[in-house]
């Protein structure tokens, strides 16, 4: 094949298929539908042992003694470890504050805290041996809410705190506190024609990802360990694991194994250190797989919250002021609580223009289960409350709730309570218009002419609890505001390695990042980005591991922006290198090499006018271009700890919902008929995946509205429902049709103009459903999830 750049040989270049904007299919799809995709719980190694974690049966107690002798003597048991066996001075870990013990020492602070580890030749042997470990607990009083946390005689959940938040909190049982004060809310309240207040309760939600916490640790000959695990951020895990093991980071090699969902629940460590400790101690590969019961104790949950809000509005419907106090229960360990507090406070006002605000958000230390990251991250709880307030105000002013929201909606250029100006499109009013303008689903769909009711379409479904009598319909709206990416001055970067070479006569690109693919489809868009930037059809995605720089976390709706941005940026640099090589080799064949804007398309070098200058195969020959670069978004700053001012967020995203529900008022059963959603995604890199994310996020919001809650006994702080029998997540029967409208208003600061999408739909889904239930029943309903007894008042 010769050079195609001679003037007689010019032809139109062909577009590369599968670039951005197309609904390219998942590269791991075939493996996932055939059962061959290796999830972390599928890992297997010859001569492998099974690890098991013994967990505390009480929420708050001193540990007098631990007797492992009987467990250790059990046939088939290779090792039993407790706190005393930890190899270094570093015995804790944590995302922001290193307050979480690898194994409990001296004290347990929540129900289900890991106390001891067992490795055995069969999982049942390990479980039975663990049951023989004798622990002498001395029960302590439990701290379960704000009153018990800051009571004068309250025990400190963490005595001798020395983290940097401690200087800014009024009590050591408060993890972090963030006020945001702007203007004078009390003065502004005097201009209000109506003022509404409300107290709201948001229940503890669980991520309930389906793939259990699991992984395989394999000791290596150099004294290190190879860990195959499902996580959201390999490098964050590594940073926490290595010091506890007493190993340098390069001796802990981590590879991402298949992740069965995450939703924030894999930001914190679970079995990682435990498996490594057992593997290093026994010299054998150790696999740990949590069952569902243990999974409910093995990861942090969404912060339950108590929220007090006050809003005022003029008689024309303009918001005058907002005051709120948001108390988040962080549970026994800090996890991501400080950042959740930052989000809850800075997004507490929602997508509305309010000049005068007085906001306070804080997270408590209690003996409840630890809470941390979950999809929506602090913004969810606030949205639930401020949207209820918007409905209350509209009702009091006798205005349409959507028009009232539109009247107060923020737009591009709005200054948020933190002082940060939203400098990209903010189509809040338009998103509400889109969901409102959809035709409503027909009423009484359970009736079809001349036939009996199809009970499957009724609240209660096949339980056959009603044939339509006592069933009323309601419609509700909500809209939310979510930040994208890590905020408050965090050095939020991502790294990508892109290699381009000729293999078997074809130009091929390889992408290597440490991005955790948790189901969101990052691997799909990385290939699309590379096809777009490098004009090759064949793109291989290298497994994610710690042999390449950090990609940051797969959370905060940030991965397509951040690692997608890193892949784009690195691919552009690879393209420049390729063009340099081309100019050096072939530049004399055609003047356009020196003068034109050159692109890579369809395996060729083309001018921006479409003239083909060369085949990539001829440019590269047997050279490979291989670059690894870090990429950053524009910087943010920490919020001022007194006023809350500061450009703390990277980007904002917006979604609106309209919920249509039917409620059996006699039994208090709710059926959500339709949950329409409109979201601005900036640019849909993969429309199919975008819609999938929006529908998935919407369903998690629906879940917390009507069924999902981890119930913690207020007297003992023990978890009552750690199973899929008792912690309910929506089934296909609980989930309605979810029509989606996607707007693509580019954010000029983001790669391709894109906007993070994963979280925003979770925010407004919950308050929309609640609003619809209130609309149907006329009840106030100020908590989530709504249970039958709240509707029937029994």
């Amino acid at each position: 094949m010769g050079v195609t750049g001679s003037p007689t040989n010019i032809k139109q270049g062909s577009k590369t298929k599968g670039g951005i904007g197309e609904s390219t299919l998942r590269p791991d799809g075939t493996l996932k539908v055939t059962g061959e995709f290796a999830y972390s719980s599928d890992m297997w190694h010859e001569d492998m042992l099974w690890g098991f974690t013994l967990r505390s049966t009480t929420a708050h107690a001193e540990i007098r003694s631990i007797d492992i002798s009987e467990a250790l003597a059990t046939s088939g048991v290779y090792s039993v470890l407790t706190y005393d066996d930890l190899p270094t001075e570093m015995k804790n870990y944590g995302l922001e504050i290193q307050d979480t013990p690898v194994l409990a020492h001296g004290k347990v602070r929540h129900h289900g805290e890991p106390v001891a580890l067992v490795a055995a030749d069969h999982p049942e042997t390990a479980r039975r041996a663990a049951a023989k470990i004798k622990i002498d607990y001395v029960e302590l009083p439990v701290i379960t809410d704000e009153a018990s946390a800051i009571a004068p005689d309250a025990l400190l959940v963490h005595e001798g705190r020395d983290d940097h938040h401690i200087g800014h909190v009024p009590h050591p049982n408060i993890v972090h506190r963030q006020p945001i004060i702007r203007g004078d809310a009390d003065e502004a309240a005097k201009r209000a024609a109506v003022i509404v207040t409300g107290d709201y309760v948001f229940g503890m939600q669980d991520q309930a990802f389906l793939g259990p916490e699991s992984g395989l640790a394999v000791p290596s000959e150099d004294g290190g360990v190879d860990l195959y695990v499902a996580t959201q951020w390999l490098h964050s895990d590594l940073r926490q694991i290595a010091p506890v093991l007493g190993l340098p980071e390069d001796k802990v090699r981590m590879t991402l194994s298949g992740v069965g969902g995450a939703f924030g629940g894999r930001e914190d460590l679970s079995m990682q250190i435990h498996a490594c400790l057992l593997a290093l101690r026994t010299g054998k590969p150790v696999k740990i797989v949590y069952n569902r019961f243990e999974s409910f104790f093995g990861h942090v949950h969404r912060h339950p919250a108590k929220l007090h809000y006050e809003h005022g509005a003029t008689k024309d419907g303009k918001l005058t002021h907002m005051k709120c106090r948001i108390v988040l229960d962080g549970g026994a360990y800090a996890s991501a609580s400080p950042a959740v507090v930052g989000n809850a406070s800075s997004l507490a006002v929602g997508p509305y223009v309010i000049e005068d605000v007085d906001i306070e958000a804080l997270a408590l230390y209690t003996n409840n289960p630890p809470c941390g990251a979950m999809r929506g991250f602090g913004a969810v709880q606030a949205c639930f409350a401020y949207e209820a307030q918007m409905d209350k105000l509209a009702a009091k002013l006798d205005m349409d709730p959507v028009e009232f929201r539109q009247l107060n909606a923020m737009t591009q250029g709005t200054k948020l309570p933190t002082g940060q100006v939203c400098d990209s499109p903010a189509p809040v009013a338009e998103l509400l218009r889109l969901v409102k303008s959809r035709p409503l689903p027909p009423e009484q769909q359970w009736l079809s002419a001349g036939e009996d009711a199809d009970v499957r379409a009724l609240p209660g479904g096949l339980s056959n609890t009603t044939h339509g009598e006592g069933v009323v319909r309601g419609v509700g709206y909500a809209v939310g505001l979510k930040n994208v990416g890590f905020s408050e001055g965090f050095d939020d970067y991502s790294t990508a390695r892109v290699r381009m070479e000729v293999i078997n006569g074809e130009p091929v690109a390889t992408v290597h990042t440490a991005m955790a693919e948790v189901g969101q489809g990052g691997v799909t868009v990385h290939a699309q980005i590379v096809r777009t930037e490098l004009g090759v059809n064949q793109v291989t995605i290298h497994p994610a591991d710690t042999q390449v720089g950090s990609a940051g976390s797969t959370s905060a709706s940030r991965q397509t922006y951040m690692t997608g941005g890193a892949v784009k940026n690195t691919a552009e640099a690879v393209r420049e290198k390729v063009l340099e090589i081309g100019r050096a080799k072939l530049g004399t064949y055609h003047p356009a090499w020196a003068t034109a804007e050159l692109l890579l398309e369809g395996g060729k070098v083309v001018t921006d006018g479409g003239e083909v200058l060369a085949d990539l195969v001829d440019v590269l020959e047997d050279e490979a271009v291989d670059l690894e670069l870090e990429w950053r978004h524009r910087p943010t700053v920490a919020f001022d700890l007194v006023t809350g001012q500061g450009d703390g967020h990277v980007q904002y995203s917006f979604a609106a919902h309209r919920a249509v529900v039917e409620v059996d008022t006699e039994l208090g059963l709710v059926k959500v008929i339709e949950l329409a959603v409109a979201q601005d995604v900036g640019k849909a890199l993969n429309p199919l995946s975008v819609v999938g994310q929006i529908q998935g996020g919407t369903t998690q919001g629906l879940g917390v509205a009507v069924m999902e809650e981890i119930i913690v006994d207020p007297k003992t702080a023990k978890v009552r429902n750690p199973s899929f029998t008792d912690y309910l997540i929506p089934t296909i029967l609980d989930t309605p049709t979810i029509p989606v409208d996607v707007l693509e208003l580019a954010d000029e600061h983001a790669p391709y103009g894109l906007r993070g999408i994963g979280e925003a739909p979770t925010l407004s889904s919950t308050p929309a459903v609640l609003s619809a239930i209130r609309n149907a029943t006329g009840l106030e309903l100020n908590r989530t999830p709504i249970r039958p007894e709240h509707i029937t008042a029994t």
Partner: protein
Amino acid sequence: MRVNFTVNGRPQEADDVWEGESLLYVLRERMGLPGSKNACEQGECGSCTVRLDGVPVCSCLVAAGQAEGREVVTVEGLADYSKHRDGAHPGTGCASSDCGTSLDAAKRWQSKPTDGRTGEAGDLSPIQQAFIDAGAVQCGFCTPGLLVAADELLEQNDSPSDADIREALSGNLCRCTGYEKILDAVRLAAARQEETV
């Protein structure tokens, strides 16, 4: 104890099975067939759904010993099972000589390399292909169980209504997709099935 049964058309025996082991454990940890997933191990999520003599069951709730002498089809065998549906398949007897799966084919399932070009690979059952095409796979952990359940639905009912699909799949939890694309996938597979008839 020893358990003898047929998995995806291939006779298997498992030795040293502890009496309390589930069929799911034996499939995953002893047979090297991890396609059936372990999400709740309480029969609540459907991720471990397999067909036992043709009937969809949660394999986590079946004691391994109960599978003695019976036919099991897992997601790994779904494509082959679906191919032979019209002739014969495990549970309804074997009328033709090409039913079941050869040892070679069984090995292929476990080691087949990916070409990284989802959607273009052959040898998938219609429901598997439809799940890929409709975007019904995200994290994919629920997918094997849903595929087995949906395949059985389509076997019983070649043009299910949405209410039928919801009813049939109500025992399978999915946390990622919001189910809409799973409905799309089943509708797509049903429509394609009709086209080919």
